[in-house]
């Protein structure tokens, strides 16, 4: 964080705060406010509209070249904006996949035309995206993809199936790796495409999770025709492009975290909500916070959150020095996702009987979002590559241990 004129930053802070007051959905954050159901079209539209507002106000799109619609801000400004947004709480963006994984992939492997066509509309939330990666028989083994693509003139005819497609229900565009050369060896037989979700033959069936929501889908490609111009990277290079997508996904938005110099006294290393929850929950006459076992568990998460913050910064500096291989993201990915689960377990133990209340029950705290998180985090250590696969990456690619069974 550079030493900028503090007055300027404070003005920005006031500006953002006023803007938020003006622009947040009516009643947002107040006890009476009822958010649209998670995963519903209403929630999607709200998120989309919100994301567009934020972009139009110049409060997102940082770190992207301006010729693709990016917005220039100093790191200090970004930190102020992010902090104000977090402090207030904002609607979840619709389709975070576009900014999180499609943009980095396009920036690395897309041609100029593709970048100009797609990135600006991702930033402005005019188009949202889905990711058709996992297949029923190729969960964590991306090289084993069975979807086939056959060239027909200027188009590819794609057939096959995906599971765990995220964001697909309302997506406008998708990314998909396809086997285009069945005779080529592993890692050389795939090509990577972006495709229009309104293409004939593309079908989406919601896939319900243990949370009761259908956040993911199964998707079917039945002779879907994709123009050759939509191939990202070279023919046969699809595995590498897909890995770039996964790396971006596993990195979980490292690029969006602005550094802050001090521990935020207001967020207590990110555990303030747990402290509050523990202090507001009584068990046999005492608050849960009075139980040193929970107090220390919460403290442990404060420690781990700070550790993650500083590790991300270390990685950022290493990236600038070009000392990263890309495999390091596995570290943060494993740790943060397992931490999410452990945190959710702790919340469930703090809340006791009340963790049972699901969305829709008037007694559910925050309309059941704590319970939703408790259940949802079970998937965290599976999606975008299981933690088992990532541990293998660390062992083999970072430590150079001999390959285990493959």
């Amino acid at each position, binding site marked *: 964080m550079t030493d900028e004129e503090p007055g300027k930053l404070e003005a920005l802070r006031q500006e953002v705060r006023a803007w938020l007051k003006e622009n947040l959905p009516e009643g947002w954050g107040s006890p009476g406010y009822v958010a649209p159901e998670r995963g519903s079209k209403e929630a999607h539209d709200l998120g989309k509209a919100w994301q567009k507002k934020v972009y139009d106000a110049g409060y997102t799109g940082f770190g992207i070249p301006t010729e693709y619609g990016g917005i220039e801000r100093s790191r200090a400004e970004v930190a102020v904006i992010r902090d104000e947004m977090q402090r207030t709480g904002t609607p979840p963006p619709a389709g975070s996949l576009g900014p999180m994984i499609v943009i980095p992939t396009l920036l690395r492997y897309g041609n100029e035309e593709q970048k100009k066509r797609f990135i600006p509309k991702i930033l402005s939330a005019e188009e949202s995206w889905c990711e058709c990666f996992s297949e029923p028989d190729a969960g964590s083994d991306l090289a084993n993809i069975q979807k086939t693509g056959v060239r027909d003139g200027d188009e590819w005819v794609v057939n096959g199936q995906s599971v765990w497609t995220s964001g697909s229900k309302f997506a406008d565009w998708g990314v998909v790796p396809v086997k285009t050369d069945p005779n080529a060896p592993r890692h050389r037989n795939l090509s990577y495409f972006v495709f229009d979700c309104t293409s004939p033959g593309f079908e989406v069936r919601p896939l*319900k*999770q243990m949370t009761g929501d259908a956040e993911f889908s199964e998707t079917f490609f039945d002779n879907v025709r994709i123009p050759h111009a939509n191939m990202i990277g070279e023919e046969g290079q699809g595995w590498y492009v897909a890995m770039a997508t996964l790396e971006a996904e596993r990195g979980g938005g490292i690029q969006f975290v602005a550094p802050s110099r001090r521990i935020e006294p207001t967020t207590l290393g990110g555990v303030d909500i747990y402290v509050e929850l523990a202090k507001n929950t009584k068990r046999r006459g005492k608050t849960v916070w009075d139980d040193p076992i929970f107090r220390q568990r919460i403290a442990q998460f404060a420690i781990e959150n700070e550790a993650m913050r500083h590790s991300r910064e270390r990685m950022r500096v290493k990236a600038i020095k070009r000392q990263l291989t890309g495999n390091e993201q596995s570290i943060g990915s494993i740790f943060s996702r397992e931490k999410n689960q452990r945190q959710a377990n702790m919340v469930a133990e703090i809340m006791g009987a009340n963790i049972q209340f699901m969305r829709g029950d008037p*007694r559910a705290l925050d309309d059941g979002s704590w319970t939703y998180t408790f259940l949802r985090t079970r998937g965290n250590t599976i999606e975008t590559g299981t933690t088992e696969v990532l541990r293998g990456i660390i062992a083999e690619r970072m430590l150079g241990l001999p390959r285990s*069974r493959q």
Partner: protein
Amino acid sequence: MAIEYGLNEEQEMLKTMARDFLANECPMTHVRELMEDDTGFDPELWKKMAEVGWLGLVFPEEYGGSGMNFRDLTILLEEMGRAVLPGPFVSTSLLVGIPILAYGTEEQKNEILPKIASGEAVCTLAALEEDGDWWADSINIRADYRGGHYVINGTKLFVPDAKVADYMLIVARTKRTENPEEGITLFLLDTKEVYGTMSTLLKTMDETRKQYEVVFLNVPISAENILGELHQGWPIMKQIALNTTAALCAEMVGAGEKVLEMTVDYLKERIAFGVPIGSFQALQHRASDLVIGLEYSRSLMEWAAETIKEGDPDAATAVAMAKSFCGDTCKKVVAEGIQMHGGIGFTWDHDMHLYFKRVWTDDNAFGDSNYHRELIAKKLDEIHQLAGGGRWKITSGRMIPMG
């Protein structure tokens, strides 16, 4: 009498019969149908359970029961855990039936136990209140004596199977003294005979077990319907908790063992990177850890069940140890079950999440693992005090045994 480890022939038969019965009468497809139902109750299935003698399993034959014992009952519970059985079995048998057998008047026993055994009467217990907290101080719903009978007012929460209950055992406060464990009375309400109760289904995580809010509005109840003594309900409540906790341990172990079996099967079938994932050593070792955890869970659970069966003074300790260990272990088992199944284990259509939710709900009921571990710590302290500072002393740089 010695603790009986493992099952005798009769118990082996009971177990086999129970597994077959549940596989036939309540397969997973039926569990899912009952989840969609607001009561989760299937009168047909209930009738069949009565016919095979489960509903009065531990009642003497004079009350229409099968005359079996508590350890036998936990064998059923294990199988019900494996099957994630919905419905009011725990409510009826553990929360109400056994307490009536133990503390009821001859009249109460004669009236209700045969009905339970024959499947005519479904029962439940209304104990927890708004804070969902399991201790006497939270019992605030009032039963006031007015005009020759008691009048109950207030709200109970997390009442299982309230909608289908013919009898409801209500834990109410009849007196407030310094000691919150005094002045609590248990009332046995015939739900068909009174007005003024209103049950609302709660939207809770484990949809195989329906729970309700029950509001009591000037519900009259006669002193004859007290279970045990006036003001002396809490000790009974503690015994109910003890029995039920032991039963829930059996249910958790049953669920955990089933999850392990499903997971091991999946590890053998699922191919990744060209081989069955069960040949990956990391997964093998984690599966082995679950075997270890379940061996000790079962050991403690069987001991706990035996102590209850025997009325052993160690029962409180045994049950607390079992609950703490089974809870920790089975929560780990279901989490690992999902993880090792990968994506499929996270879907609604796969059964893993039913076990996950059941185990977490069981762990929470009547105090979770942490609570029961703390009970053991308190017990250690107590024994140490009683022994006059323990049998070891540290003196002159040595820890030496006393006397």
